[in-house]
């Protein structure tokens, strides 16, 4: 029982990170019908940006409060990663829109490889560590077989995720910008007839996806304390799986899918075997897709022109 509770806590933490990345996949797919294969690498880049800024703040500028440092890191990483992804869209995807269907996809794979190699070249192939932080724990239970603990960093991860998702939900559901995004997603030609600049709206979608990926990247760094150039791949694939599981195109679906993948992975590792935890997540995906082809919360039609 204690073990289960502990794994639940760990799974939700991990799932929050997947959920944040998954939103970027799902929004871009929703609006231009493209799987952005480079999104996992954008996440990885954001973790590096976070790392560099964190080190600069604490070691060069002497910021002593770790909370202040992380807050600044979060904002700066969101900003810079957004700028980065905005540029990627302009350079690598937009010129190919209206070209044959697979062109942007291939371009995205190329961008993924480029980002990975670029970071490897500039940052070196080894893991980049961060001093441990937020390692204090709260003992949720004590006296049993072992204590169930909740680390401060887990609280931070879940809390930051929850606050950002709430803000993000408000943005998409209640503001003119979010409405324009949903309109472009549903019928881009009609949106244009009403004066919506479709290209600009697509750009903003990439920016928003990158900002959330940057939050995920920063939290990932806080959680694991290390990041390497290849760290975009596995979380990226998992988050993409989460987006498909939740129903690609659906934002609540991406969050739900992220939490589910995080939980499945953690519980599988704890109770079955650490070796096949990735297989477990994909198996669940396959089973869900057999019975619900458009995912848990997906819309039936996903065909894009």
């Amino acid at each position, binding site marked *: 029982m204690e073990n289960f509770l502990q794994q639940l806590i760990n799974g939700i933490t991990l799932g929050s990170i997947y959920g944040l990345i998954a939103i970027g996949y799902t929004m871009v797919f929703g609006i231009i019908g493209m799987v952005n294969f480079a999104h996992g690498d954008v996440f990885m880049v954001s973790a590096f940006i976070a790392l560099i800024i964190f080190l600069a703040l604490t070691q060069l500028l002497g910021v002593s409060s770790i909370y202040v440092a992380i807050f600044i890191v979060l904002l700066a990483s969101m900003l810079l990663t957004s700028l980065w992804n905005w540029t990627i869209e302009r350079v690598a995807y937009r010129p190919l829109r209206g070209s044959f269907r697979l062109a942007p996809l291939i371009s995205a794979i190329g961008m993924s490889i480029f980002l990975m190699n670029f970071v490897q070249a500039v940052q070196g192939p080894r893991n980049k560590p961060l001093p441990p932080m937020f390692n204090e724990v709260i003992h949720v239970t004590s006296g049993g077989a072992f204590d169930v603990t909740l680390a401060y960093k887990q609280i931070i991860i879940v809390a930051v995720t929850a606050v950002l998702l709430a803000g993000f939900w408000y943005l998409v559901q209640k503001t003119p910008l979010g409405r324009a995004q949903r309109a472009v997603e549903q019928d881009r030609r009609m949106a*244009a007839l009403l004066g*919506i600049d479709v290209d600009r709206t697509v750009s903003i979608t990439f920016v928003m996806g990158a900002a959330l990926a940057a939050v995920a990247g920063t939290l990932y760094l806080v959680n694991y304390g290390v990041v390497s150039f290849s760290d975009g791949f596995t979380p990226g694939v998992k988050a993409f799986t989460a987006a498909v599981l939740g129903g690609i195109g659906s934002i609540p679906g991406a969050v739900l899918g992220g939490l589910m993948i995080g939980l499945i992975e953690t519980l599988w590792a704890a109770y079955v075997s650490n070796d096949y935890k990735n297989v477990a997540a994909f198996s669940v995906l396959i089973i869900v897709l057999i019975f619900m082809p458009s995912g848990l919360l997906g819309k039936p039609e996903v065909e894009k022109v």
Partner: protein
Amino acid sequence: MTAQSISSEAMLDLRGVESCYGNIVALKKVDLTVNRGEIVTLIGANGAGKSTLMMTIFGTPRARKGQIIYEGRDIAGLPAHEVARLGIAQSPEGRRIFARMSVYENLLMGAALGDPSSTAGDLERVFAIFPRLKERLTQRGGTLSGGEQQMLAIARALMTRPRLLLLDEPSLGLAPLVVKQIFDVIRDLNRRDGLTVFLVEQNAYHALRLAHRGYVIVNGRITMSGTGAELLARPEIRAAYLEGGH
């Protein structure tokens, strides 16, 4: 109420416009004028190029030749969203309601460009024209009836505060009573508010009765033009477009 004021000043003037889908020429040397304050209709059979003409004004497909002069300026080649910002609104073929948005949100999409402080007043204005929409405000666009969707498409276009309103087959698939209602609204908007309307229709009888002037399009080419009454009286129009109807 203001008396209708039709000027001979061209608001929209197409000169030798051609547009294509790939290698297929869909519009051939189209000359067409809409004067300020008029209702002008374009009638033609299915596939004649009516919707293409509407969309060409909005730049998709782009006019390959010719000029599209709107309020004295050539707008051929402008992207759709910039055309919309010049005060031209379109209720397109198939109505294109945002199916997963509420009626209210569909209307707000029409107000996307405008000054937010005038939105409330503009909403009241379209509710006065289409009271039904007010009753359906929270309903999803995709669940409306065809007639309601058409009302919403026109209302959404009006929310942009257009000076020129383009309507692509607003009567398509609607019950006669609803068609009459829609056409009455178009007449009111024109006579009472002075709105200039360019109306594409297969329903030639109603359209020609309503319009000040009309054009006939056949295979992408304008073959006839004249006042509504003139065109209605022509035997070839009666034979081709008014057979067995009305």
